[in-house]
């Protein structure tokens, strides 16, 4: 049973790991292969700061809220394991700031210690009159992706550095199931007008005195189009750009200035911070995540594709819940192909 995963970002690698963990014992012939044209540190997941935080509203996608929770709980369970440091996993607290009162988010009971900001705390952020404080998690792609790669390599998963041009290409080589975790480029494999880039740009600085994340919100401009500051383990990420439909991965001087000025206004001490890098990436945005099976007829064969893409700016936040859901879909496929007597494990 050959399974090919297209994409080696957080979605591709975690889906591969989840499937291998659950099924390698049950399906002796299981062979996993990861195909990608970009590997860490050159994926979209590597550029993200790595903060676990969903968008403000789930737009009624309760399933996504559940996947977010599963991911948080899974990561929290790993926090005290010896692997945490290698995974790039640690707790972080911080502030979400608004210019007017807003309803509590769907994730208020998922994170730890969620509460409103006190008047004294709001004095720290002139111009903002309302906000939240909570403790969440950081999962840095620069560490997590290599960690996933190591786990997969140990399990005998093979990696291929190539750009897959079509699902057919893999099926004609004898692959039985394809996991489509191609993120922003899913449209190259199968047109999807709902998938659009949400271009982001970030400045990396050295500001080790900043211990909290600070995310501002401008309800009119939309998510992540308002300054944010996220301290990592080696550098701090300054951002605040979300340009829907912009495919450019070049750093823009105008966006740089916008990020720099707005973040320095938020935290004046940043003026003294040393800039150590800049990066632009494309959030694979979609009204909802595409996580579903598709059966493709290829002559007399029925080929199976599991799509798992379109995680926008919350890929790290939702990845494990989606990996588990993809694994469940895989289990169903195995059942149908009579590779399994019954579905494995408890259903969530």
């Amino acid at each position: 049973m050959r399974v090919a995963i297209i994409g080696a970002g957080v979605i591709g690698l975690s889906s591969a790991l989840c499937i291998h963990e659950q099924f390698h014992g049950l399906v002796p012939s299981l062979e996993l292969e990861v195909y990608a044209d970009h590997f860490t540190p050159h994926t979209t997941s590597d550029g993200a700061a790595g903060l676990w935080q969903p968008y403000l509203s789930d737009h009624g996608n309760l399933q996504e809220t559940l996947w977010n929770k599963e991911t948080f709980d899974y990561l929290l369970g790993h926090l005290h394991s010896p692997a945490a440091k290698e995974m790039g996993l640690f707790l972080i607290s911080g502030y979400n700031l608004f210019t007017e009162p807003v309803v509590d988010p769907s994730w208020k009971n998922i994170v730890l210690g969620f509460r409103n900001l006190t008047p004294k705390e709001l004095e720290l952020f002139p111009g903002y009159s309302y906000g939240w404080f909570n403790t969440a998690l950081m999962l840095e792609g620069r560490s997590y992706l290599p960690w996933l790669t190591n786990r997969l390599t140990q399990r005998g998963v093979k990696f291929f550095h190539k750009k897959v041009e079509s699902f057919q290409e893999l099926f004609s080589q004898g692959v039985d199931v394809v996991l489509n975790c191609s993120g922003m480029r899913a449209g190259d494999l199968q047109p999807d007008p709902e998938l659009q880039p949400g271009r982001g740009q970030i400045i990396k600085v050295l500001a080790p005195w900043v211990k909290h994340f600070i995310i501002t919100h401008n309800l009119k401009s939309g998510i992540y189009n308002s300054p944010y500051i996220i301290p990592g383990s080696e550098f701090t990420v300054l951002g605040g750009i979300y340009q829907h439909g912009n495919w450019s991965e070049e750093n823009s001087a105008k966006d740089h200035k916008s990020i720099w000025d707005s973040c320095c206004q938020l935290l004046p001490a940043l003026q003294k911070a040393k800039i150590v890098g800049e990066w632009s990436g494309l959030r694979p945005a979609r009204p909802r995540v595409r996580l579903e099976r598709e059966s493709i007829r290829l002559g007399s064969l029925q080929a199976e594709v599991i799509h798992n893409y379109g995680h926008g700016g919350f890929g790290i936040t939702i990845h494990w819940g989606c990996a588990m859901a993809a694994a469940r879909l895989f289990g169903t496929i195995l059942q149908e192909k009579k590779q399994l007597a019954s579905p494995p494990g408890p259903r969530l």
Partner: protein
Amino acid sequence: MASPKVAVVGAGVIGLSTALCITETCPSCSVTVLSDQFSPNTTSDVAAGMLIPHTYPDTPIHRQKQWFKETFTYLFDISNSAEASEAGIHLISGWQVFKSTPKEELPFWSDIVLGFRPMSEAELQKFPQHRFGQAFTTLKCDCPPYLLWLEKRLEAAGTQMYTRKVADLWELHSEYDIVVNCAGMGAHQLVGDKQLFPVRGQVLKVHAPWVKHFIRDGDGLTYIYPGIHRVTLGGTREKGSWSLSPDPGTTRDIFDRCCSLEPSLQGAQDIEVKVGLRPSRQCVRVQREVLSQGGVKLPVIHNYGHGAGGFSVHRGTANEAAHLVGECISAMQGSSRAKI
């Protein structure tokens, strides 16, 4: 007295902040700081500089609260300014956890720090050996940066600073009109205060930049305080011990206790061991005294004995000491007018 000459003995956080307050409240004063040690070799440099007050048994609580409030407000404003990183002042959130519920669930300072509240059940899960906890956000003064920043402000105000071991306050009477004694542990020798005793603290300073929260065991013995570049792991409270030599067994013990609170510290690098003697007293001595010898008078303002709580109350006691200096000058000017 046109330009009173004030000597401040001691260049730790108390000496420097007191000197600075004096330049602010008495611009006509000429202030000189004298100390045998300057940053990075003061007791203050060993301390983590966390704003979590120590309770002095014999100082009225309202006075301790006032000192803490003034200090917190002062540092809060700096942390919010462009100078924050240079001054080494930053906000930090975290948890104080208790193995058994403390008698006092609401310490006197709970409304001064930010966002103080009991920890939720979910938060306590991270500390399986602890049953109760408090979550809050406070400030940290990193040293050397904070002391160097104070020195810079002093220089800008025209304050001279000299490395000099003062063996006896009387040495200073011919050169200075008023002496301010911020000698910390040195006051034991300098003014023979038998009520002052060392409480030895050993700490580790490690590289663990993924640790973003402070964690303190309510017993005060085990704590993890992330600073700008290093995390301070502690500690010990050895009453009466004068030893400044790091003890390897203690190092191991501190590391183990901290790893049990925060397992990821197993991956900490570059462990540096430091020792400091907390200049402890039942109450902080902020007091005027006039020394007298052979008809000569020497006004002295004491500001020492802050023990484990120096950073938490430094600005408040510095303000009070500077106020006493002002009173002293008024008294001297009053008496000199009387002589005319």
